Structure formats: C-alpha cells, structure tokens
C-alpha cells in the first residue's frame, strides 16, 4: 500500500464504484481552475467534476441521480470538497 498523491479522488472513485457499479466513470480534479478563490487548502482536491454512466440511474430524475451521489459522498462534501460538478446518465436513452 503506497501512499497516494490523490487521496480524495481515490476515495471518491472507490465509493462511487462500489455504490453504482458504473459502466463509465471519470473523475476530474478541477481545483487548479479555482485557485483564485483562495480557500486556503494546500494540495488541491477541493473541486471535482464527476462524469458517470450507470444502470442504477435509469428511470431517475436529474435531481434524484445527483442526490444519490451526494449521499454516497456525504463525508467528502462535508469536508474538503468545496464543489462537485455532476454529469450523470443512465444506460438507457
């Protein structure tokens, strides 16, 4: 178990994979774009964009999909993660 440089990202990835079994999952750290806010957190990992396609989202509204992800990432959102942009789709049109 080596120490990772991106603990928050890794934790988000592990939790989302376990909860939603996504067909596609991309987690983009956008913290650098928001440096000017000066939230005073060293090391970034404060702003993320998640693009995920999962069968679990079929038949769910946009708000419901987002709430499901917010629920799984409650700990991250209450802590270091200041912004979480979500692009969530099901596997059916």
């Amino acid at each position, binding site marked *: 178990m080596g120490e990772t440089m991106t603990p928050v990202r890794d934790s988000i990835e592990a939790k989302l994979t376990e909860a939603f079994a996504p067909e596609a999952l991309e987690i983009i750290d956008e913290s650098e774009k*928001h440096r000017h*806010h000066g939230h005073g957190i060293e090391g970034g990992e404060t702003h993320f964009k998640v693009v995920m396609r999962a069968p679990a989202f079929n038949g769910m509204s*946009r*708000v419901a999909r*987002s*709430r499901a992800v*917010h629920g799984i990432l*409650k700990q991250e*959102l*209450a802590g270091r993660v200041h*912004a*979480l*942009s*979500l*692009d969530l789709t099901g596997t059916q049109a």
Partner: protein
Amino acid sequence: MTDPSHETIKADIDANDVVLFMKGTKQAPQCGFSHRVAGVLRYLDIDFKDVNVLENEAIRNGIKTFSDWPTIPQLYVKGEFVGGCDIITEMTLSGELDSLLTDKGIAFNREAADKIREANA
C-alpha cells in the same frame, strides 16, 4: 422541520415564483456557479428573487437541509426545487428548462434561450 431558517426559506419560495439562493446578488455574484445560473436567468429575462446566502449564515446552512442538496446555487420555481448549476445548465441546453417554465407559467425570452443553444451547439 426544527430549523427556524426553514420558515424563512419557505416564505421566500411561497411569495416568489422564481427564487435563486446564491452566493452574492444577481448584480454581483460572488461565485462562478452562482454567476452562471444568475446569468442564464437574467439573459432569459426571467423575473426572479435572489437570496444572498453569504449575508445570512442560518439560510446558508438551512437551505442545504431544506432542499436536501449540499451546494449553492439552488433554483426554485413555483415552490419546487429544480436543481443547481449543473442541472440548470443541462436543462437550458436540452430545452427542458423552456418546458418547465412554460408548464409553470413563468414568462421568459424563448429567443434568448435558443441563442444560448445555438452558441453551444
């Protein structure tokens, strides 16, 4: 409903057809996400009330539990939670926002909405 801020929030969304809970004001947004949503609403000539959560810590926290939504901005139309920045952006581009506003009887500039879609096509 034990949080007293929820009553204030409820009063605002009951008294106004369109309410945006945001960081800053519609004239001077203080965050990129709030800026984007306020910008879309203004561009579409929608009459909306802006609630600056930075001026009221109780509302800033209370709106998150009220809506079961952890981030700001948050848009309400006719008392119904519509979403935050990502959802409003997606709905603007897909035309779903036009449908929602039409269904709810909210006046907006459809040509402006088409212009946004053309520019992002």
